[in-house]
């Protein structure tokens, strides 16, 4: 039984006892029983009502009062819809922006990874001093860590399958992410299969064979390739033509490795690592693995770092090459979750979260200002209620409830705005940023939202409420509050708030301005190649079809031929990775003149020069005269020349030197130096790079087959990409069905995408900055309009006494100017102080760039003065007769 119903029964009994005693006494006094009963009941009155009123005393009354306040607040809002709409809209903007950013940040940074006790998972990577090169580890090193360390429960490892991986399912082959994993990995992650037994947990060793030949499919791979067939376990699945027995299917959402927190899950397959001859050494021929470990319960990551630093010294000592010994001398132990997010993106997201917080603050200040204005207008009402006996607490509660109602409505609207903003961001965010912008709201977000709403309500209404109830009652009643002395103090306060708004808006505007200038500068960096009218397809090459075959003869040559003959195509070429493509990166250590040199290796066809309009610093690019049987040729980039040319100031001194053996007995000589600088990012010059001619690469070209790992088809065309892409896709499908899945883009888009976090930050700051400007101008306008309407009589008197209308205009403008100047002054200080936050994103512009600061300040000042001009003009047009009569 509930407390309430027990008390209710108690009350019934109590009243009944009263009745009985009254009746008994009357009978004792000699009345007959029916008489006594009737008389007693008459005397006690309407019993249900008595009980009702009694129950009201039990303390539920505050709930009822809250209800009253709520109804009153809604009535107030209905009575002045303009005020309600402004306040709710303003707050909704602030709450929406903050909620949207928080959603994104929560997904990207705060969520734990979907593994058992994920906080204890760490990655281990070998590196040299300064972390210039980070290395995956060979088995011999891993084995040593496993036996020597005490910090970890278990150490597991994995590596991606070589080349592109295709799972041949019921119909077409499906491109998947294939991983070779150590047999203890899944158990270490705490991952369970949805179907089948999965991998048997077994410590990795050369004899580990319990899982040999077994393959585990991700849920997506199972659905896409096998239609979700529940009888899949024990069947054969072919990966790149190699047969495996399906031993497990993972539940939906499971993913390893995580490409990025919460990024969409593509199809994956896992097969056991087979340790063999390739795992006995420490050289480049050995397999290298990504290592992930689980810290023992209670072991701090710092302790693990300290232990591993000692162990790694012994490990590094076993590298024979002195350079390699240095390169492997340190071990980086990092939380798995932290290792997944780019430091750049993390900083960008946090800075944007801060920016959205500032916008929210501006919105709250604006609403505070609105409520202050209204509490002034309602001073008489509040004073009247005080005079009638309402306590200050009671009046304050009522005003805070009003604030809550406004914030509540704003929160609902804000959620809508947030969802809209997120889907907008999704379309703006560059592909390579790979942040998950999924839009479902969950408990964390809702809790954060409720917190924001409450905070907004308290921030925006508590102060005005306090100001209102502290005002003395008497003068307000006497003078109607309109021209009361406390108005001046109020106005000063409100001016202060507007100045604060101006200052915060300026901070956002400056940040926005700096990023816009960054983007502008980036767009105008001379790239060294043309980007217009180029359609690019990142080919999804079914590598396994071309093992021991000449992919040139069977795929690329016919493909180029047909692409060149498409309507509107001026030139078609192939290159391992178009500039800024971020799809492929292989660093090679080459021998040149007896020295070890390190450079990225690419391959290209002659037409690439024409497509990208590349110029040469020295020598020539590939031509159609370069054939599989002619002299081996290579082209290098300026970074290569700067680093390795015998004469640093003369790139042509490189010409004729040998860099690489295309195959046994076929050295590649440098025939040209390209004049292009921006290969990896627009902001930085390239790393050294060597390009070889695609036609000279044959199956005999050794271990490295650049032609089947990655290839971009680039086409120069006059036609629009939307027309060109379907035709190219058809052409690719005819060449090989898997190629139809190739990713298409345009070169312009690739350049745009490469701006990554800057572009995201700039776009969001444009939104935040313009919203802040709008709010700030609205706040200023609102205050001045209010002040002018309050001072109508005073202005009328001034005119009647002979003041010039220009003087009155000046009076109001001066007030606006002071607020703006104070705000701008503080804002410049804030902007300089917060410059540190954005410095990392800037390119070609300093955080305290004078032009940007001045520009933003000027924009804000001008918009503010424009907003002030309207009320000022109204002040100047006051008709003295009307103004005096109005009182």
């Amino acid at each position, binding site marked *: 039984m509930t407390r309430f119903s027990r008390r209710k029964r*108690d*009350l019934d*009994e*109590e*009243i009944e*006892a*009263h009745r*009985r*005693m*009254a009746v*008994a*006494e009357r009978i004792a006094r000699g009345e007959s029983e029916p008489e006594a009963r009737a008389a007693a009941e008459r*005397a*006690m*009155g*309407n*019993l249900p*009502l*008595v*009980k*009702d*009123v*009694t*129950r*009201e*005393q*039990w*303390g539920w009354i505050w709930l009822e009062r809250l209800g009253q306040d709520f109804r009153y607040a809604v009535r107030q809002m209905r009575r002045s819809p303009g005020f309600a709409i402004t306040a709710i809209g303003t707050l909704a903007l602030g709450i929406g922006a903050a909620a949207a950013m928080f959603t994104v940040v929560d997904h990207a940074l705060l969520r734990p990874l979907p593994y058992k006790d994920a906080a204890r998972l760490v990655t281990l990577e070998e590196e040299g001093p300064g972390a210039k090169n980070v290395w995956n580890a060979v088995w011999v090193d891993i084995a040593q860590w496993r036996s020597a360390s005490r910090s970890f429960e278990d150490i597991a490892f994995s590596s991606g399958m070589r080349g592109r991986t295709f799972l041949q399912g019921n119909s077409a082959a499906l491109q998947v992410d294939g991983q070779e994993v150590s047999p203890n990995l899944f158990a270490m992650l705490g991952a369970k299969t949805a179907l089948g037994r999965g991998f048997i947990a077994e410590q990795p060793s050369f004899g580990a064979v319990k899982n040999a030949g077994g393959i585990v499919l991700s849920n997506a791979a199972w659905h896409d390739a096998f239609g979700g067939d529940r009888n899949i376990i024990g069947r054969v699945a072919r990966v790149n033509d190699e047969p495996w027995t399906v031993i497990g299917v993972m539940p939906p959402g499971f993913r390893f490795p995580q490409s990025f927190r919460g990024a969409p899950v593509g199809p994956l397959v896992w097969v056991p690592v087979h340790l063999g001859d390739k795992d006995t050494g420490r050289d480049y021929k050995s397999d290298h693995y990504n290592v992930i470990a689980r810290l023992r319960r209670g072991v701090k990551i710092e302790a693990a770092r300290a232990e591993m630093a000692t162990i790694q010294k012994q490990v590094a000592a076993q590298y024979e090459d002195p350079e390699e010994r240095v390169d492997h001398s340190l071990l980086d132990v990092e939380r798995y979750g932290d290792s997944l997010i780019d430091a750049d993106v993390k900083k960008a997201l946090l800075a944007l979260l801060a920016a959205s917080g500032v916008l929210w603050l501006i919105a709250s200040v604006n609403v505070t200002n609105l409520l202050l204005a209204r509490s002034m207008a309602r001073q008489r009402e509040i004073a009247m209620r005080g005079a009638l006996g309402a306590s200050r607490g009671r009046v304050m509660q009522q005003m805070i409830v009003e604030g809550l109602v406004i914030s509540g409505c704003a929160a609902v609207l804000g959620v809508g705005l947030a969802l809209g903003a997120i889907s907008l961001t999704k379309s703006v965010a560059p592909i390579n940023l790979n942040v998950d912008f999924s839009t479902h709201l969950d408990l964390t977000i809702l809790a954060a939202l409720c917190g924001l709403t409450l905070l907004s309500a308290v921030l925006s209404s508590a102060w005005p409420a306090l100001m209102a109830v502290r005002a003395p009652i008497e003068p307000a009643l006497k003078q109607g509050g309109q021209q009361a002395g406390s108005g001046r103090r109020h106005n000063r306060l409100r001016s202060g708030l507007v100045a604060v708004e101006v200052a915060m808006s300026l901070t956002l505007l400056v940040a926005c301005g700096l990023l816009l200038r960054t983007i502008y500068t980036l767009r105008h960096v001379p790239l060294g190649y043309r980007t217009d009218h180029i359609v690019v397809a990142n080919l999804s090459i079914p590598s396994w079809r071309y093992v021991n075959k000449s992919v040139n003869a069977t795929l690329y040559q016919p493909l180029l031929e047909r692409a060149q003959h498409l309507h509107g195509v001026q030139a078609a070429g192939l290159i391992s990775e178009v500039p800024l493509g971020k799809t492929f990166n292989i660093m090679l250590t080459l021998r040149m003149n007896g020295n070890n040199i390190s450079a990225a290796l690419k391959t290209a066809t002659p037409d690439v020069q024409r497509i990208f309009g590349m110029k040469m610093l020295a020598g020539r690019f590939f031509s159609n005269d370069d054939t599989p049987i002619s002299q081996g040729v290579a082209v290098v980039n300026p970074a290569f020349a700067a680093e390795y040319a015998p004469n640093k100031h003369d790139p042509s001194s490189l010409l004729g030197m040998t860099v690489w053996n295309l195959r046994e007995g076929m050295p590649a000589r440098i025939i040209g130096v390209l004049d292009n600088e921006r290969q990896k990012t627009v902001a930085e010059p390239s790393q050294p790079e060597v390009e070889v001619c695609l036609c000279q690469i044959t199956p005999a070209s050794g271990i490295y087959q650049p032609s089947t790992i990655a290839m971009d088809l680039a086409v120069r065309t006059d036609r629009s990409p939307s027309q060109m892409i379907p035709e190219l896709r058809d052409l690719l499908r005819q060449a090989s069905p898997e190629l139809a899945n190739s990713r298409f883009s345009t070169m312009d888009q690739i350049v745009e995408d490469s701006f990554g976090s800057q572009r995201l930050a700039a776009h969001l700051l444009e939104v935040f900055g313009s919203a802040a400007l709008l709010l700030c101008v609205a706040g200023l306008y609102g205050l001045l309009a209010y002040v002018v309407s309050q001072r109508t009589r005073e202005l009328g008197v001034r005119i009647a006494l002979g003041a010039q209308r220009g003087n009155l205009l000046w009076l109001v403008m001066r007030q606006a100017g002071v607020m703006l100047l104070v705000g701008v002054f503080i804002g410049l200080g804030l902007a300089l102080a917060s410059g540190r936050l954005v410095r990392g994103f800037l390119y070609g512009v300093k955080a305290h760039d004078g032009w940007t600061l001045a520009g933003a300040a000027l924009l804000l000042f001008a918009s503010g003065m424009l907003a002030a001009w309207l009320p000022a003009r109204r002040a100047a047009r006051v008709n003295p007769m009307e103004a005096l009569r109005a009182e």
Partner: protein
Amino acid sequence: MKSEHEKYRNRIDLLQGTLDMLILQSLQWGPQHGYGVSQALRARSGEVLQVETGSLYPALHRMERQKWIAAEWRQTEQNQRARFYKITAEGRRQLATDRSKWNTMVAAIASILEA
């Protein structure tokens, strides 16, 4: 119905303070149930004050919530189970304040009437 409800409420408001003081005073003489309180007030006032049930019980329950009085179920001499109220220390303090306020007011009104 609604207006009747209001009537009861108004009556409490009207008597509030005074009624509280009288009830507290009657509980000074010893724990008593609701009926006992009403009878005692009637008897001590020389049959002038008839405290209505609709005022008495809301007042008792309110004062219980304010911790001026405490309640427990007990048997009466006639073997009737009833809810007995007794005054708390806080209630005694309240009574003292109420009394001094009342005396001040009576004196003030008297001086006006006699002027």
